[in-house]
């Protein structure tokens, strides 16, 4: 493995994946703009760079898709997000997302984790420190809550 042609092919695959992600992040502007939040192309580029660093620091990889568009989607309607700090807050939330994934030993799905993070963010008036400091019991509580809700719905359906 590892001929020059091969490297070119791999680089072009990497580049195309990166461009896809960039487009996905920028397309989130259509939704977030309704809440007064947008990312400039340069800000989106910087965010992608920080995402790569965060993945490296937490020892994780994203192979087919990224959590970033889902994270923007989950937080963009929070009343505690301000345009001036939008890019920086997203970067911090992304850091928190990957570390909490590790801390939860991958027991939580992306959706469950994002739901828990958003709850902690709003409850603390928009503090990313509060999200980073979330206790695992609380995080896993999100899952039990969701499961209970699921059970209740099932019971209702049965009745």
């Amino acid at each position: 493995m590892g001929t020059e042609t091969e490297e070119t092919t791999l680089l072009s695959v990497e580049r195309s994946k990166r461009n896809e992600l960039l487009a996905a992040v920028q397309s989130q502007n259509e939704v977030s703009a309704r809440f007064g939040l947008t990312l400039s192309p340069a800000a989106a580029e910087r965010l992608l760079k920080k995402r790569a660093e965060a993945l490296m620091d937490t020892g994780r990889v994203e192979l087919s898709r990224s959590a970033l568009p889902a994270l923007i989607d989950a937080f963009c309607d929070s009343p505690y997000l301000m345009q001036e700090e939008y890019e920086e807050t997203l970067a911090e939330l992304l850091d928190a997302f990957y570390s909490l994934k590790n801390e939860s030993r991958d027991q939580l799905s992306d959706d469950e984790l994002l739901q828990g993070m958003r709850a902690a963010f709003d409850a603390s008036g928009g503090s990313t420190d509060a999200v980073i400091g979330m206790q695992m019991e609380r995080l896993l509580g999100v899952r039990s809550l969701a499961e209970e809700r699921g059970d209740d719905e099932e019971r209702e359906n049965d009745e």
Partner: protein
Amino acid sequence: MNSANDRRIAAISDRVGFEAEVMKLLSERAERYEMGDASSLRTETAEALLTGVLFCMQLALTDAEDADTHSASAGVLFERGLAEAARQVKRGRLLLYQAKTGRPGVENRGLRDTLEALSTFFAKYDPDFFAHRIPCDIDYPLCHPVSEELLGISYINTYLRRLIAENAFLKKLSPVRLRSLLRSYLGDYEELLVNLYAPAAEAAIGCALAGRDPAGLYVSQTEREKLFDSLRENSDDALACVLTDAADSVCRALSIGGAAERDYLRRAALDTIPRIRAAADDGAAGLFPSLPAPV
């Protein structure tokens, strides 16, 4: 893996776009592993998934001669490898059954625990995602250890085949004599993590070399010394011939007809050559063990 297989694998992995194909396949496997719930996974999990994918592809390529296999996509090779792993798992279950029913008439904790652990292997083995893994502890040491380069079911089946060959030999011996030999040579052999085959095989070969009945597992001290003196006078090639002949004569005496068992015993005989050479200065201690002299 033999060199033909290595060449086959090298030819395919040098194919233009192969790495990109593998990365795409890995993404799909990761997505399936996470059941679509997660976008990221730990690096070590991704690496393990990749090793599993590559191992399956290697299984598909092993001994494959058809041109179609050589031009197949990474995805097709992976699927063929999965099917091959499934076939080998079926074969492995039969081998385990054979190993359990063919246990020798002597007890050993390591052997007992390993046979139990091998059952766990078949319960926990996950070829879909981690075909290269061996999810159990294999403690019992073989006379000829399996190469650590073999992975997953390939390692397990090779281990089982060797264990069966060892047990088939041990079953040809009288349990009373075998226990006595192991006790005098190894001490508490039932509790120690030791191989039972090697001392018995060497003892039988020693008997054959001394012109005694291999099943007796006994040579006198004088015979051992004489034997040792005559062996070390040989060149390595001549010694190899003498030892191989002795192994064959043990097989004849014990009615061991299987080629695998015979080759295994020949290897055990040849393994004594460096020890015969090394023991030239400090006597024959430890070589060709024997039952204690009858009182």
